């Protein structure tokens, strides 16, 4: 796998950050296992995972607050994991911001430049510029305790970016904000990232946030990478049942292939897959309520009884019992009213073959 990545990197130009076979054990607890991941220059990569999946540990290894039990972290030609955190050209936006309470907003932002002993004139202009960028110039003289959570968030961002790092790490920076502010910050953060062109590694447990902001998502599960792909790819072509379920809603169809036919309960369709047990992921929005007379050329049709309808406004989720223990969830743009028995239809191409996700401790 590593060899393949290196070959790809050779063609595309070297990635900025290369994580190679990193593992982390806390005593007997294996928090990370064999993580290999590349981050390109200017990329917005999200590490997505549930709490306890090891995502923060991975970030802390890159920042230098934890050392890896095995493996290497490279930034271009430099072995990053042997450097203390204060020599890495990496900055972090902490989950609870970690602003220095005894310093003003301005002094907080200037901190990195001051310890690097930059000329005072340069410090002042860069700090002013950074505060301008995050719209916090008016609060320059305030202490962190006197400004709101969202404002502290911006200051933390300015404090990291003012050092012009090669890579910015963000540890669930939006999790403490309320829903509206959060959506607004998602947009701002993304456009800020495009503007400064610095690579971001963003850690979150929120799959929607990951979808909205990222160039690529690295889905982490119990310390192992489940899938690394663009949001569209990971949604449209999830490689495992876990990925399909964690990102968006899905119908998992368990069945088997025999003699060129896929069979999942009452559903059958032609396939080129070899014989054996199979698992498919079928997104609810890829299933349609079918009218009597229209049929897709490569469509799979089934008739079922409506169990439950949930109206969400723009869309409606309908649970349909198709017999033989198969319940399909359908997302429509509105059914128009209460339904009883319906015909469902989907394209066989939308049933994506996924791997089982084995239970991990």
């Amino acid at each position, binding site marked *: 796998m590593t060899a393949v990545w290196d070959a790809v990197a050779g063609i595309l130009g070297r990635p900025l950050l290369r994580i190679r076979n990193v593992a982390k054990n806390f005593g007997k607890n294996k928090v990370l296992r064999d993580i290999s991941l590349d981050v390109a220059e200017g990329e917005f990569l999200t590490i997505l995972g549930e709490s306890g999946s090891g995502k923060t540990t991975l970030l802390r290894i890159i*920042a*230098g*607050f934890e050392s890896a039990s095995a493996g290497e972290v490279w930034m271009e030609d430099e072995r990053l994991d042997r450097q*203390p*955190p*204060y*020599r890495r050209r*990496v*900055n*972090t936006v*902490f989950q*609870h911001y*970690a*602003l*220095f*309470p*005894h310093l003003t907003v301005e002094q907080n932002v200037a*901190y*990195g430049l001051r*310890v*690097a002993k930059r000329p005072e004139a340069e410090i002042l202009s860069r700090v002013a510029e950074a505060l301008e960028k995050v719209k916090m110039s008016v609060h320059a003289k305030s*202490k962190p*305790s006197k400004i709101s959570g969202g404002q502290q968030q911006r200051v933390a961002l300015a*404090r*990291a970016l003012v*050092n012009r790092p090669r890579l910015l790490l963000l540890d669930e920076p939006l999790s403490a904000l309320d829903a509206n502010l959060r959506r607004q910050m998602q947009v701002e953060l993304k456009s800020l990232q495009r503007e400064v062109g610095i690579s971001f590694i963003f850690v979150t447990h929120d799959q929607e946030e990951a979808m909205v902001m990222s160039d690529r998502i690295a889905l982490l599960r119990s310390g192992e990478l489940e899938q690394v792909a663009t949001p569209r790819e990971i949604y449209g072509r999830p490689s495992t049942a876990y990925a399909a379920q964690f990102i968006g809603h899905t119908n998992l169809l368990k069945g088997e292939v025999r003699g060129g036919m896929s069979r999942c309960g009452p559903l059958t369709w032609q396939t080129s897959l070899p014989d054996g047990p199979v698992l498919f992921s079928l997104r609810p929005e890829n299933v349609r309520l079918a009218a009597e007379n229209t049929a897709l050329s490569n469509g799979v049709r089934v008739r079922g009884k409506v169990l439950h309808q949930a109206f969400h406004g723009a869309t409606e989720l309908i649970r349909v019992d198709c017999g033989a223990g198969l319940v399909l969830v359908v997302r429509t743009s509105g059914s128009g009213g209460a339904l009883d028995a319906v015909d469902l239809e989907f394209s066989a191409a939308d049933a994506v073959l996924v791997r089982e996700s084995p239970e991990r401790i």
Partner: protein
Amino acid sequence: MFSRAYKAAVTLPPLLWVTAFLLASYLLMFCYSFWSVSAAQSIVHSWNFYNYAQLLRVDVYWQTLLRSMWIAARVTVFSLLLGYPLAYFLSFYAGKKKDLLYQLVIIPLWVSYLVRAYAWKTILGSDGVLNTLLQYVHLTKHPLEFLLYSPFAVVLTLTHIYTPFAFLTIYAALEHIPRNLVEASHDLGATPGQTFWKVIFPLSIPGVLAGATFAFVLSLGDFLAPLLLGGPSGIMISNIVVSLFGAAYNWPLGAAISLCMLLVVVSLLFFSERLEKKWSFS
């Protein structure tokens, strides 16, 4: 929320306590300091400033007060110099041994003050442990006299006794510093040294001030260490007060000196509290 009767019942006992045992005694002492003693050794209840004038006129009084403050200042500095690194090490680097080491630092506080003071007598005396050792290894021919019955012995003993107090307050302040601030500092490129001076130390100042206040105030009022180990040159202001209230039978002068000490201590507490407020950021 609570009835007036309940509030009164709760507030009254402490109020009475403070009035009877603190305010009344301070008031009495205040009055005494303006009275005088007759030649026949009886208190003359006539108001005058004679005692305060004595305090300024007789060298031994104000000099001893100044020397006591100088001793207390040295004790404070040494206690902080010993207590801070210890607290810093324990808070940041001791890991799993933290609780054990913490208990070890606290243990001397359980031992009687007198025992600890006498222990130094055994160590520092002419036939003491230290002198015997120095002569045994032929570093000195005669016992070193300055070790015991000197200001040195007093400063040493008081430092030993009050270092745990300085340690405790500093340790508490260090434990309150969120560790992600230290990480943030390293993340922003600050070396461990820079991080200490720019983040950890400023945030621990309230603890340093509280510890300094403890050490200074407690050692300023100390009279046992100078009594046991100070000798004539190591005498402190409390020893004078004790003798004025005792053998010398001059309560008015003793009261006047006590009030001066009280003034020093109260103004110190006032300033350290203001400084602590200025440096706290919770």
